């Protein structure tokens, strides 16, 4: 146990001293995950809203596929991404393998089903009077969409936080598509794996502590937002 305790002490020293390798990996993890979730939010909220309100052929199948996608292993996304982006792959000409943009695309694929499924659930479960009231007050389809998103904003915020937490802590995509290249594609998760393999436990623990801190922040935010606010009524 001593080496773990020493590792934690050394890790805290590295974090407090602003170790460039830790900060570099942390910053990269943050911007890659944020970009992936932002892109997935634009696409995912749109698809989720449409699935909640429109009915068309294959509608149920799409919902099932997106729900199934929520549990997809990151190594599978990494493998498919690698196959698509490698030189021999159909998207090889884009030269995105072993680049941060490649990881963003992979994490986009990870975040999209989460955001679509949770947005769909949030809007589909809205009180039917939301739709009826908006219709009877003359709201256009665009106004209605804004109303649905407004009424379900808490659940949609939770969806985004959940997607961010998943992207920030994932390893498979960053390792397989990013390649763990120092100062280019190295994220906190891949750096932790590498430092552990090298036997540099203090740095590995430092990276893990930052990951843990982010996970705690996200979980706390999700928990706080999940608590239903008591609706004060009087009269």
């Amino acid at each position: 146990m001593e080496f773990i305790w020493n590792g934690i002490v050394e890790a805290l020293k590295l974090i407090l001293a602003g170790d460039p390798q830790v900060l570099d990996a942390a910053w990269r993890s943050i911007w890659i995950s944020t970009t992936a979730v932002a892109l997935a939010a634009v696409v995912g909220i749109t698809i989720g809203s449409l699935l909640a309100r429109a009915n068309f052929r294959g509608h149920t199948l799409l919902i099932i596929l997106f729900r199934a996608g929520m549990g997809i292993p990151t190594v599978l996304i990494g493998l498919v991404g690698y196959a698509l982006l490698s030189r021999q792959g159909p998207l090889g000409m884009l030269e995105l393998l072993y680049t941060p943009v490649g990881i963003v695309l992979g994490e986009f694929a990870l975040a999209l089903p989460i955001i679509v499924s949770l947005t769909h659930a949030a809007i589909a479960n809205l009180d039917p009077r939301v739709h009826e009231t908006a219709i009877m007050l003359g709201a256009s389809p665009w106004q209605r969409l804004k109303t649905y998103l407004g009424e379900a904003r808490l659940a949609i915020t939770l969806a985004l936080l959940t997607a961010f937490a998943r992207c920030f802590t994932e390893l498979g995509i960053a390792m397989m598509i990013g390649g763990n290249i120092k100062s280019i594609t190295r994220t906190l998760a891949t750096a932790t794996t590498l430092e552990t393999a090298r036997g540099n436990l203090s740095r590995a623990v430092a990276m893990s502590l930052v990951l843990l801190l982010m996970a705690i922040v996200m979980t706390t935010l999700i928990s706080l937002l999940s608590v239903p606010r008591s609706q004060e009524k009087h009269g």
Partner: protein
Amino acid sequence: MNSIIQITDLQVIRGKKPICQVPTLEIQPNHKFGIVGTNGSGKTTLLRIIAGLEHDFQGTLHCSLPQNQIGFVHQRPYMFKGTVHENVCYGIRSMAASDRDALVQQMLESFKIQHLAHRSCQQLSGGEQRRVALARSLMRQPKLLLIDEPFADLDDEGIATTCTILGNLTQTTILISSPTTIHSALAINGEFVLDSNAF
């Protein structure tokens, strides 16, 4: 005079059981019309059909107005997240802000709820929410106003205020209410009695 609503042999069946039957019903423009009946007689269903919110029925319904000229207030109105002011101006958001704010203020004053303008709708009592919902619906000046139990949850002052406002309305109004309230508090031009024992 041309009827604004004409209903013939309307029947709503849910799970092989009729829940609303209207042999004939005609409503003239600018009239105030009451729908009364026992619990489960299909009053709300009838109102929803007239509003165009329910389409699964047999018989014929002719309404001379498009849905965007019909106002509908639920029995338990839904309040969008936000303040009373934001809710009341929901249907007229395309209007210039200064004109819109003046109209909202005027409407809130007529309902005697101007002091609630910046209060969150989630903090209002049932009676206050009902008045806000009615004000919100009237902002669009619908030619036909459908109100489900407008006097429920209201205290005496709320009933009096709502009756004064409804009494001054020039548009056709159809409301569901108990026979006692509808006769004692509001001058109506006609009423239709739905009877659950008829089916």
